[in-house]
């Protein structure tokens, strides 16, 4: 989960999942600890027969991903550049891809596939990322995660054409309904980032129409509302409520004042 919180003050940009943004920073701090402890418990646990083989494989792949992060961080700290052919991301992308070849179709391979592609775009090896992506069939369960990686790569490069073409293919031809629906939704997100509001509307409307009673359908509906009514410069929606102390509060009553609305939760 890596999403950035950069949408402030820009009109028409999709709000990114805010929670994940906050975790991004702490992941780095975590990294060193896991370098020391990450791989050891894994070997110990793989002896334990009560652990399902799928889970064990997922742990194994996640340990590889963690190790790749540690090495990339070390490499960058010691002055290594993304363009360096010795960048550890390239080695780990190859390892994860070879894991994929040996274990087709498993949950662990879904992670390995997506993370291999992520390692490549992070060091700007976009053509290699695309070449590898081209080998995935529309029936591949790894798409569940790969779409997120391709959208992140598109955001980084500010070039959405490849993402949109792959996502269109999935939205039409994927067998897994969830992957299909998510692809259509993410096309909306991509156009939103791109600033193409007409296409954004079309995509979210399609999600809402095709998957009305799902969480994704509701999210699409919320985004359609935001596109119309929650742009910078538009009057904020008005509401009247009582405070937790029982005092009535009305947004319309704050005319002439600058208002900060903080949405929060104790959870």
């Amino acid at each position, binding site marked *: 989960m890596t999403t950035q*919180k950069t*949408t*402030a*003050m820009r009109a028409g940009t999709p*709000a*990114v*999942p*805010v*929670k*994940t943004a906050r975790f991004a920073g702490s992941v780095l701090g975590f990294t060193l600890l896991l370098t020391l402890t990450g791989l050891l418990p894994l070997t110990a646990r793989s002896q334990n027969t009560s652990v399902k083989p799928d889970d064990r494989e997922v742990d194994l792949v996640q340990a590889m991903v963690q190790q790749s992060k540690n090495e990339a961080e070390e490499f960058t700290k010691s002055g290594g550049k993304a363009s360096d052919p010795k960048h550890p991301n390239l080695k780990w992308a190859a390892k994860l891809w070879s894991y994929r070849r040996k274990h087709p179709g498993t949950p662990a391979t879904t992670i390995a596939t997506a993370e291999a592609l992520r390692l490549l775009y992070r060091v700007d090896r976009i053509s290699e990322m695309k070449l590898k992506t081209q080998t995935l069939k529309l029936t591949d369960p790894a798409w569940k995660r790969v779409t997120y990686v391709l959208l992140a790569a598109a955001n980084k490069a500010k070039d959405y054409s490849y993402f949109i073409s792959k996502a269109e293919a999935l939205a039409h031809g994927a067998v897994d309904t969830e992957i299909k629906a998510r692809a259509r939704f993410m096309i909306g997100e991509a156009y939103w980032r791109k600033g193409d509001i007409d296409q954004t509307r079309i995509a979210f409307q399609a999600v809402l129409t095709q998957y009305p009673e799902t969480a994704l359908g509701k*999210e699409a509906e*919320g*985004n359609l*509302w*935001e596109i119309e009514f*929650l*742009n*910078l*410069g*538009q*009057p*904020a*929606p*008005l*509401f009247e*409520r*009582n*405070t*937790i*102390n029982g*005092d009535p*509060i009305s*947004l*319309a009553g*704050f*005319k*002439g*004042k*600058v*208002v*900060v*609305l*903080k*949405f*929060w*939760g*104790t*959870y």
Partner: protein
Amino acid sequence: MGEVPLLKELYDLYKDQGVVVVGISLDEDLKPVQEMVTSKGMTWPQVQDADKSVRKLFNVKGTPFYYLLDKRGRIAAKDIPMKKLGGAIDELLKKD
């Protein structure tokens, strides 16, 4: 410093200069909200949006999430990070 102490500092600084802060808690239970409001000294008005209707009105997808409105009630910033809030408020106070 955490998010809440920073907002508290900001609130204390601006509350007499024409700035309103409204907390909108998405919690379903009132008790933890009241406890946190008391323990952290959050003295600005708090609304409990248990039915998520205000959240829906503003399409809030995660927390914390800030909207900033100008003196005419127009959206001046959405999903603005805490560290930019003070500067943005200063700018808005200069305008009508």
